């Protein structure tokens, strides 16, 4: 595949560097499929989230904050991550990303395969993180309705090109977007 251009984050070049470099520069990425350590416990997954910023100190500082968002995790910290339900796994992946205190949180298809109520819950938390902690979040999402609700800015990608982009509220009014993605 031919590609050109560059990727920079906060003034630092990331093009060609591995994902570990991106993580160390403050980007937390929750991949499609979540990328949990299924064989490790809930707590060990969270500890891995803290790895990038010095595991021991970071997990001690960040765990209480994360447990505030997800109280069930504290009670079930020793459960094997692979035995959690799909929604719980998505929340754990999100929590693990938050432990790193990222400057940018990237969520890839967070709603994939989850029940609507769980999707609502996850996006509620994402909105809260954005509003209260000022966390920058980049979400790639098929569910346009949910995504437009949460986002302040949105882009529609068609075959790798930005087809439409702008303020979420305006994009909602855009006729093409409405017909193709929102279904009304």
């Amino acid at each position, binding site marked *: 595949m031919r590609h050109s251009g560059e990727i920079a984050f906060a003034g630092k070049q990331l093009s060609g560097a*591995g994902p570990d470099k991106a993580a160390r520069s403050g980007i937390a990425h929750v991949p499609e499929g979540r990328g949990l*350590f299924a064989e490790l416990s809930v707590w*060990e997954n969270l*500890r*891995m989230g803290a*790895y990038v910023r010095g595991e021991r100190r970071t997990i001690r500082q960040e765990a209480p904050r994360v447990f505030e968002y997800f109280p069930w995790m504290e009670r079930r910290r020793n459960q094997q991550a692979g035995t959690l339900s799909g929604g719980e796994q998505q929340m754990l992946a999100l929590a693990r990303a938050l432990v790193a205190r990222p400057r940018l949180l990237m969520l890839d298809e967070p709603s994939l395969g989850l029940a609507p109520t769980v999707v609502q819950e996850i996006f509620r938390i994402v909105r809260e993180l954005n509003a209260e902690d000022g966390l920058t979040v980049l979400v790639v999402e098929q569910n346009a309705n949910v995504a437009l609700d949460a986002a302040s800015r949105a882009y529609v990608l068609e075959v790798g090109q930005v087809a439409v982009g702008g303020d979420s509220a305006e994009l909602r009014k855009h006729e093409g977007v409405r017909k193709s993605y929102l279904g009304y």
Partner: protein
Amino acid sequence: MPLAFIWSDFAQQVTSGLAAGAIYASLALALVLIYQTTNVVNFAQGEMATFTTFIAWMFMDHGMPYWPAFVLTLLIAFAGGVGVERVLIRPIEHRPEIVIVIMTIGLLIALNGLTGWIWGPEVKAFDSPFPNRSVIVGNVAISVRDIGTFCVCLGVVVLLWLFFRFTTLGLAMRAVAFNPDASRLMGVRVGWMLALGWGFAAVLGAIAGMMAAPTVFLDPDMMIVVLIYAFAAAVLGGIDSPIGAVVGGLLLGVVINLLGAYVNFVGNELRLPTALAVLLLVLVIRPTGLFGRRVVRRV
């Protein structure tokens, strides 16, 4: 024949089986450490162990006392293991597994030749740090050397377990073994974790080599048989289970020793085929071994 005598003889066979088993367990654990991250069996594990044992012999031959030579050898083994991964395995890590397997077989042959070339093919005596006498517990005579071997091997296994269980680096290494892609997203330098794994495996091998050498004597081929026992132990325990490797090693050591002592037709010559039979039986009846990983997943 009085019953007490038979009992003490049995106990004696068990304890010396445990000592041999601890050596198999160390080498089996080395195999598992590498298998977990690279999905290949490191066929050169035995020769790496032999090579490092010769280094220890060289130090002692130059007059260095046992324990300093022991520690120095472990450090060299660690560096050597890391080096092998960085130089030989790294360039081919994304190639099909068979390519890596062939690389380890190549390394086996090369190291075997190199050992013979540097130190000569003749058999050498290798000192044990433990006296060759027995202590009587109850009416069972237990060889001090067996106790020492067992404690050194199992002590290192316990240290390693503590490392993996309680340190950040240990957690990261486990994470890499389970999911390297996700580990990268956590900021882990996966390549270095793999190299560390090879380093630890080489250390375990060196310990197995140095503990085996006083009994089997030091020559370039000394670990070939031990490696086969270690294979059998690792497969018996479950090739991806560290606990399995240790339990499998101890079990195999005891069973083979008892079979050799009590089942007439087994004797000394048939010990190795017995180990291979165990290997075969496990693969046929329970391919995941005693502790093999069955991942529980809910999607």
